[in-house]
């Protein structure tokens, strides 16, 4: 037993069951009498439905029921959007779970077949006759916002779902006075989240009790319960949502989807359990995608490279409908981060959320912040090139100086703590930056295209103060709660409202308990994912679980500690103020032999034979933690690439990361999060992108065409960290789940542009596929 377990890189306790295939996911659950649903999906990106004849399917072998949108009238409410950003003229057009008159993306649900087996249900789909009248299609979010573009929703002119602005200082004046201005048009392409486990829903309707149980691949079962209530009309206390093992989400399992609603509808109609699990092809077509930005951006600076202003106009694709959280992603989580780690006194941004004929877009790892960091870091490199200075030095002169307790930026938010220059120094030092530049000079002399990329970043996470959530239109709170329960034998259950699905909190939260009261980590089980046996919480996303839910755990276990101290004092016949604690033992000051262990206390509290006057039995505490501010992790990354100018192929040779997420509960888990995050950000820089053709068909519809990062394409990642505690968090921790993704896209992009700059190439649209790079090199050589 140790009380120094906080900060120890112990192995993840959830891993044995996960990596040996013995964990139980939604699709593993089989209930007696369970039927299977398959959903007919629109093959058109935009079309009127002129008729549906489902009668042919009903008579197929094994088919129990076939439903179309008309069957849901008066039963299912529309799919809700739950982030209603204020002051943006937000339009929330109807989004039926099953399309009735019109489809707006390939994959829009049109009908559902319920059969005895999934194979029979799939076979029967082929016997549903749907007549479509194809309509004009628009894919680009900027094109969709223009006059004359095909209109997806009648009541949304120019497809503009919202117009949101951020401003601080006087950006126009800054640009008018600027010695140097640089600009770019950045496409941050659509990305497919690709969790290993596809989405799934299993609904069971207990008619006599009026109770609905939904097993669901959700990052936030309590939100799923709330939205199930909204859509199905079943009272909230009659709904139980269980997120069993969830195999990754990356944001794509935050939303409440039509498929969950359809599956619940079928179960309620038929009175038997119904399961639906998406195929990987469906996952690509219908599970929310990320990004889809077209950004027209410019930066103003002095002739010495001091940044004076930033202006942006962003067209953010929403897809065919608004998903659960989509309006908040390119606005609150993006525009408010426009200052990055820099002093930028004058900022102005306009963000258009635009409907386009693709899969709905919602949160994807980093959600808005990678987009902000990417545009800032690309512009900073352009400023450095314009003023002829080293990009690392231009960053250094613009970084906000070290602060420990609050720094206001022009977008109106207050960073908690930061030491950005230290992170930059650490990254440059770890990379051997000066040597890299010398090697680069030699390589260039030898005719090789070697590039070094640098980025600094700060992100907003630990979402967040509920009052702020309300002020920015989030239709919920952002606090978390925890119950810590000591059983008579000293074993512990921790019930949390958040819902980890790979992040390792079954380990790190046990480490918090162990380090506070001295129990063994293995004596603590962390319970999550079931609305019937966990307290309310808003879920796992936005690098918030350790930052918010972990704080609730810490506050709750400290209440346990206080009660234990009081009970120990009573049992040891000492005054509470004379009780000291060390290594799981409460003892009378100066007499360590006179002590009670936490296990002694747990037993005595549970049997309650000898409690002090007025003290309740039991050893259990709960805490509701609403953070006073967001947390702001930060860091600096460096990448080295070599480009083959003959082919345009890019070899990522080194990647160095320095991240500062405050004190680390488990450095091994932090490192794992950074590894995955970096790779997920390198993907869009070099390989990944969901491509729709002009007809709105997903061209990259499988892993044959959609290029996920693969281990053999990456170097050994060099991961380091600094430690700047958050001033407002009970443990000082900040969150690390998204950092790598936020920093790595521009780091690698900047490295490639650094390699190509001598050839006259200054920009290429991402992903930097070989052909695009090859064409850019050829165009530059041809004077283009």
């Amino acid at each position: 037993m140790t009380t120094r377990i906080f900060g120890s890189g112990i192995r993840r306790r959830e891993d044995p069951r996960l990596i040996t295939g013995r964990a139980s996911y939604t699709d593993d659950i089989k209930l007696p009498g369970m039927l299977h649903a398959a959903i007919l999906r629109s093959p058109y990106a935009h079309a009127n439905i002129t008729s549906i004849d489902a009668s042919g399917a009903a008579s197929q072998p094994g088919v129990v029921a076939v439903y179309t949108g008309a069957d849901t009238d008066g039963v299912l409410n529309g799919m809700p959007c739950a982030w209603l950003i204020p002051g943006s003229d937000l339009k929330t057009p109807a989004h039926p779970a099953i399309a009735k008159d019109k489809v707006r993306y390939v994959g829009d649900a049109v009908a559902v077949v319920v059969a005895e087996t999934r194979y029979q249900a799939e076979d029967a789909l082929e016997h549903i006759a749907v007549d479509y009248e194809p309509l004009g299609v628009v894919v680009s979010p900027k094109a969709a916002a223009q006059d004359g573009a095909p209109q997806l929703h009648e009541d949304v002119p120019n497809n503009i779902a919202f117009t949101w602005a951020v401003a601080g200082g006087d950006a126009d004046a800054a640009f008018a006075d600027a010695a140097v201005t640089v600009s770019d048009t950045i496409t941050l392409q659509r990305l497919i989240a690709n969790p290993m486990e596809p989405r799934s829903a299993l609904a069971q309707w207990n008619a006599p009790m009026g109770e609905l149980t939904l097993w669901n691949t959700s990052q936030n079962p309590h939100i799923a319960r709330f939205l199930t209530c909204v859509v199905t009309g079943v009272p909230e206390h009659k709904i139980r949502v269980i997120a069993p093992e969830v195999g990754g989400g990356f944001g794509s399992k935050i939303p409440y989807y039509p498929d969950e609603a359809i599956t619940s509808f079928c179960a309620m109609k038929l009175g038997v359990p119904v399961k639906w699990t998406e195929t990987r092809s469906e996952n690509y077509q219908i599970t929310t995608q990320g990004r889809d930005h077209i950004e027209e951006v410019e930066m103003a600076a002095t002739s010495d490279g001091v940044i004076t202003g930033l202006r942006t106009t962003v067209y953010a694709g929403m897809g065919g409908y608004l998903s659960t959280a989509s309006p908040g992603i390119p606005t609150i989580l993006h525009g408010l981060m426009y200052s990055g780690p820099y002093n930028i006194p004058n900022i102005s941004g306009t963000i258009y959320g635009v409907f386009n004929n693709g899969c709905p877009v919602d949160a994807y790892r980093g959600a808005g912040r990678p987009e902000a960091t990417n545009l800032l870091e690309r512009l900073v490199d352009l400023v450095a090139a314009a003023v002829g200075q080293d990009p690392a030095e231009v960053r250094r002169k613009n970084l906000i100086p070290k602060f420990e307790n609050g720094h206001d930026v022009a977008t109106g938010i207050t960073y908690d703590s930061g030491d950005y220059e230290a992170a930059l120094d650490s990254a440059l030092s770890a990379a051997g930056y000066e040597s890299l530049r010398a090697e680069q000079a030699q390589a260039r002399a030898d005719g090789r295209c070697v590039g070094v990329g640098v980025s600094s970043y700060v992100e907003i996470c630990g979402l967040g103060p509920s009052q702020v959530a309300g002020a920015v239109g989030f239709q919920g709170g952002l606090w978390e709660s925890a119950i810590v329960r000591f059983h008579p034998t000293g074993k512990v259950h921790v019930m949390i409202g958040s819902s980890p699905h790979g992040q390792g909190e079954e380990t790190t939260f046990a480490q918090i308990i162990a380090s506070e009261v001295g129990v063994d980590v293995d004596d603590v089980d962390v319970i999550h994912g079931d609305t019937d046996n966990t307290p309310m919480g808003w879920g796992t996303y936005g690098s918030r679980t350790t930052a918010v839910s972990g704080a609730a755990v810490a506050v709750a276990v400290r209440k346990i500690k206080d009660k234990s101290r009081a009970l120990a004092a009573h049992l040891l016949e000492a005054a509470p103020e004379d009780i000291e604690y060390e290594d799981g033992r409460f003892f009378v000051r100066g007499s360590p032999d006179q002590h009670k262990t936490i296990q002694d206390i747990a037993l005595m509290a549970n049997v309650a034979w000898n409690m002090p006057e007025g003290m309740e039995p039991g050893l259990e505490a709960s805490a509701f933690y609403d953070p006073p501010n967001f947390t702001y992790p930060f860091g600096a990354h460096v990448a080295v690439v070599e480009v083959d100018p003959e082919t345009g192929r890019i070899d990522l040779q080194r990647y160095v990361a320095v991240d500062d997420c405050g004190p680390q509960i488990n450095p091994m888990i932090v490192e794992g999060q950074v590894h995955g995050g970096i790779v997920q950000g390198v993907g869009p820089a070099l390989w990944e992108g969901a491509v729709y053709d002009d007809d709105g068909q997903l061209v990259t519809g499988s892993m044959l065409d959609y290029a996920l990062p693969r281990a053999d394409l990456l170097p050994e990642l060099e991961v380091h960290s600094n430690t700047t505690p958050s001033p407002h968090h009970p443990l000082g921790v900040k969150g690390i789940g998204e950092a790598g993704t936020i920093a790595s896209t521009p780091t690698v992009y900047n490295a490639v542009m650094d390699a190509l700059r001598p050839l006259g190439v200054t920009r290429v649209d991402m992903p930097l596929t070989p052909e695009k790079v090859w064409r850019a090199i050829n165009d530059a050589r041809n004077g283009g």
Partner: protein
Amino acid sequence: MFPAQITYRRAGSVAEAVQLLSDNEGAKLLAGGHSLLPLMKLRLAAPATLVDIGRIEALKGVSASDGGITIGALTTHAEIAGSDLVQQHASVLAEAAALVGDPAVRNRGTIGGSVSHADPASDQPTVLTALGATFNVTGPGGDRSIAAADFATGLLENALEENEVLTSISVPSVPSGAGAAYVKFSHPASRYAVVGAAAILTVSGGTCSSASVVVGGVEATPARASSVEAALAGSDLSDSALDAAAAAVAGDLNGDPMSDVFASAEYRRAMASVYVRRALGAAASRAG
């Protein structure tokens, strides 16, 4: 991924496989399953009957034969990559096999299935064409042989007659003193060849006496680079000779070009010349 209904039959011998194909209209052969099953899962292929030949031992393995080696159609890419016989007689085939897909694909996918699928982005058809291999088939009418160069007849189309089964591939030994190489531009997602170039250079007395150069991935079937071969014949294989020869590949690529979201036809053609040059360089360095 839920394929349509199928009838599954397992063949115990080649003769039984031919009979099952003849008896079942629209039946398809199943070997390693790495080309057919993905199509079936997407319902892009829906054969009424699958004839599984995967357990016919006679179709497995590499053996020495007159003037070279014979490779059973069911031999996996991993077996070829690790075969001493292949290494001795046609190491370029092992080099290519090691570049197919990923370990799971190489452990399950078979050379017979790969060439029969006739995907121009596959590696082995390109190399086998360069090697001058022969495909041995058995059908209702008996046995016959098809030259590798004639086997793929179009995109995903082959020269097998109805109800014929590819049983083995005869590969002649690469002459001693010759240098051979296969270099590949892998698609980052699928690992298929965006461009694959195979070169076999025979050298005597410091000059190239014969060359066999084939490019895959660019056209619907592996393309023999006759102009490159002609330019190499009699040359000294100097860097400038290889440069000039590789540039000539543009004249050999006149068929329908492959093009997709990752690599356009124009880019593939340009890369053909780059990868032919790299294959020539590697082959020349191994010759002699």
